């Protein structure tokens, strides 16, 4: 009896050391159980994609939490660690906020989707079909059709309805001037995306011409939207980069952002997130499930995950 106690004790110590080792080993390899916080903004594809990515993380055994957030302010939250990722960083609309937060430290670039984006002034396709401005989508057509695009407050000039000034500063007014269109056209800043879509709907009802800022992929693609072809974008052609500003928008990237701790706390989830890559068609599919098939965002995400296992399964490996 007397001899056995220390022996048993020794075994216990060894065993517990072993288990402790194995536990710490397991913790090192596996993701933390703290929830991954995914932001929800206010457009369909983003919301569905949030639930798709969340569903993927959950399949991998992670806890996920969704939080509504403003799409501009979210980068500051990612930087502070209150939000973990952002999966739709549009170059020309959010690029500024993204790089500002990155410069302050705390946000990392987690790769780029293969979807390319275009954010540009354009017209609903029926404007071209009704020939309200012969020659569109070539920009030179704008030189003599501004009468079809006037509004009460535009002072007799044609109006471009641009997004809020916070999106791309004075790029559009600069462009109007640089292309020599400023005696016939003026730029009005809308307050938000709602205003742009309302303008599209109202113009269609009334059958008047309208030139609005828009982007693709977007739900408006379904109704037909044509972007105006401006002189092609080259590096440094914009005024803030030293050019004269007489160029269109570049084909833009769609990036993913993450908090700097994400790779350390959730290595497996981070690897999957960095591999994750959606094409324009896939983003369109997700938006269509909600906008066309009128599904709930969560249901749409579940549906997409079910239909596309071969797409996302490899990312989780």
């Amino acid at each position, binding site marked *: 009896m007397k001899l056995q106690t220390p022996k048993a004790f020794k075994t216990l110590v060894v065993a517990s050391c072993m288990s402790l080792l194995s536990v710490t080993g397991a913790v090192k390899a596996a993701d933390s159980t703290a929830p991954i916080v995914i932001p929800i903004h206010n457009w369909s594809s983003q919301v569905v994609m949030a639930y798709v990515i969340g569903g993927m993380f959950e399949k991998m055994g992670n806890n996920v939490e969704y939080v509504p957030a403003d799409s501009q302010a979210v980068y500051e939250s990612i930087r502070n660690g209150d939000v973990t990722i952002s999966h739709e960083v549009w170059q020309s609309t959010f690029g500024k906020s993204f790089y500002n937060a990155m410069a302050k430290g705390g946000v990392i670039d987690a790769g780029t989707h293969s979807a390319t984006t275009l954010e540009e002034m354009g017209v609903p396709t029926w404007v071209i079909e009704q020939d309200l401005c012969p020659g569109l989508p070539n920009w030179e057509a704008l030189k003599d059709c501004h009468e079809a695009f006037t509004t009460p407050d535009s002072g007799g000039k044609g109006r471009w309805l641009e997004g809020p000034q916070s999106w791309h500063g004075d790029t559009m007014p600069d462009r109007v001037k640089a292309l020599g269109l400023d005696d016939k056209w003026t730029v009005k800043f809308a*307050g938000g995306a709602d205003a742009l879509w309302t303008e599209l709907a109202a113009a269609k009802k009334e059958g008047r011409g309208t030139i609005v800022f828009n982007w693709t992929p977007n739900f408006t693609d379904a109704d037909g939207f044509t972007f105006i072809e401006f002189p092609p974008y080259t590096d440094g052609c914009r005024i803030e980069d030293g050019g004269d500003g007489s160029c269109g928008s570049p084909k833009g990237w769609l990036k993913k952002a993450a908090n700097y701790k994400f790779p350390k706390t959730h290595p497996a989830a981070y690897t999957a997130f960095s591999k994750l890559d959606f094409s324009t068609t896939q983003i369109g599919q997700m938006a269509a499930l909600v906008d066309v098939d009128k599904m709930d965002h969560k249901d749409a995400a579940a549906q997409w995950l079910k239909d596309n296992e071969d797409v996302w399964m490899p990312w989780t490996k």
Partner: protein
Amino acid sequence: MIEALQEKKYLQFILLLIIFIFLCKVIAPSDTNWLWRLPPLLKQFPILIKDGIDYLMFEAWPISVYDPDIEEFEQKPLMRQVTRAISGFVLFMIEFVRELMLGGVKTIVSFTSWDWATENKWARWPGLPWTVVAGGAAILAYSLNGIKLALFVGAAFVYIAVFGQWEPSIQTLSFVLIAAPVAILLGLLLGIWGYKSKTVETILNPLLNVAQIVPHFSYLIPVMVFFGIGDHAGAIATIIFATPPMVRLTMLGLKKVPPEVAEAGLMSGCGNWQLMRRVLIPTARRDILIGVNQVIMQCLAMVVIASLIGAKGLGSDLLIALNRLRIGLALEIGICIVLIAIVLDRMSLAWANKQTDYFADQSFKERHKHLLLFLMVFFAGVLLAWVGSFFFKEGFNYLYLIPHNKGITTAGFWQAGVDWLWDTFFYSLKGFNEWFIVDVLIPIKNAYLSMPVVATFTLAMGVAFIVGGIRSALIVGALLLFIALTEWWDRALITTYLMSVAVVISGVIGIAMGTLCAQNKTTARVLLTLCDTFQTFPSFIYLIPVMMLFGVTDTSVLIAIVIYATIPAARYTVEGLRSVPESLHEAGSMAGVNRFQRWISIELPLSFPHMALGINQTVVFALSMVIIGAMIGTDDLGQLILGSLSDKDGVGNGLILGICVAFIGLAIDQILRTWANQRKAALGME
């Protein structure tokens, strides 16, 4: 000449106007002329604020904190740890209330850990079936105020459930249930403190004015930096927004308590606390209850804005619906918000008015009948949900929770309504819109922008001087000077142009409606309920139809502002007219005036001070709407506040821009309030 000038105020005004026009004509627009525009000496101020906050939140007083997730010690500033601890607490409270009704795992996690909760999947609170929550609320209403309220509350909850808005509504409700009591309590305490100490009151008054006028958008970013993003941040922003009216009304109510009442309390041997709790607050309850009503209305009015910094629920669903122009769906969500507001308001009112019956001798069953009733509802609801789980095989159980999108919807009907509105009115409104913009708005806007800065100062300070003497003039001057020294003077002029046109329209409509409805009790009550509805109904929803009809123009902005800013004008007019003593009406009738004469020469003058305060509030409401106007598309201060969300100096810019808006309001407040007080004194009302 000078004597006549001293006696006749209208002569002073005419002289002021002549000087003003002269200055406008003489000074030519030029960037270098200080008389035209002052140099932006305060340009660096926002950047300093931003640097200060950054320093406080990211560098000051660093302490070492171990982060178990990355297994490293990190230097974290103390301030940040403190604010995050507050966030954690608020979030815990919200999650607790929420999960009680909807189920979840976060409350359990707060007492254990994510590791534990992940391993033990069974440890989840299941949530209550909606039938139980609705029944429970109805029983609570019944115990507070009888069957009528119970029916209303029950119907409201059933409506919310049947329309498939249960989950987001409860999410919203849970965050309001935390924010509103905190705001009420905080308001009550600050109000009492202000009542007790003159110094505190002097400090509080301007602070309250600023807090009420600063557009909520401008403190979203600071709140986000200090407290993070999520329901707690939404709740904190809501508390900042909802507390000021409570403080103000508490102070007002306590001050109105007649000294005899307080003395009677003292004579019966009340201690300090007893006097407050048993004598003063009950006597002042009428005003305090208006404060409670205002807090609840403001909380629900913040639902949409709070969702921009992470509040879950109806607000964010609403924004998503609007982004796709689904007006019908948005409208249904809006109705849910209004219903929650009315339910909370009526129930808190009933609770405050409930008298305790000290002498009732009741049996156990009588005393606990509501609890017993609730237990019955609880078991019946759970049983129903259990039975339901056999009936509904599609993966959702209607008797437990009606999922979003699976309830009844009337969206198609409302959508058709909007289409009808457009088809019927568009072409007739188009001509009006064109005329209004070209012949009214653009000339006014240009007139505002062509004022030299000296002329603006002369006019504003001159009016303040004539009304309130040198002190008022100096205060108004100082407020304007601050704005003039930022780089946003022109933007501020545009804000003032929008605000003043809106206030004129709202004032006329509000006073007219108020006068008509104050004639009898029923119409007065209808109007006040309408005021409550429009105050909580999210303005975002009517922005879309308005923009459809009037385009992305200043007309749309004005309509949005007018709908909201008419509320206080109407409300104060009703209250003012109803406060005219009945005996004066009779005295007038005996002197042989007809109804219209009585209105013109008795009621109107007597309720004028009240109406002036109403106009004052109209100014406040109009200014707080600049941000909503910016969402349509303006080029004023609001647009910049909106832009500060993405700006790298956003924290400072947003705050200073908000303060500029507040200072415009304070300057007008100074003039209107002084004048109203003088009138009151002259009429012997105070």
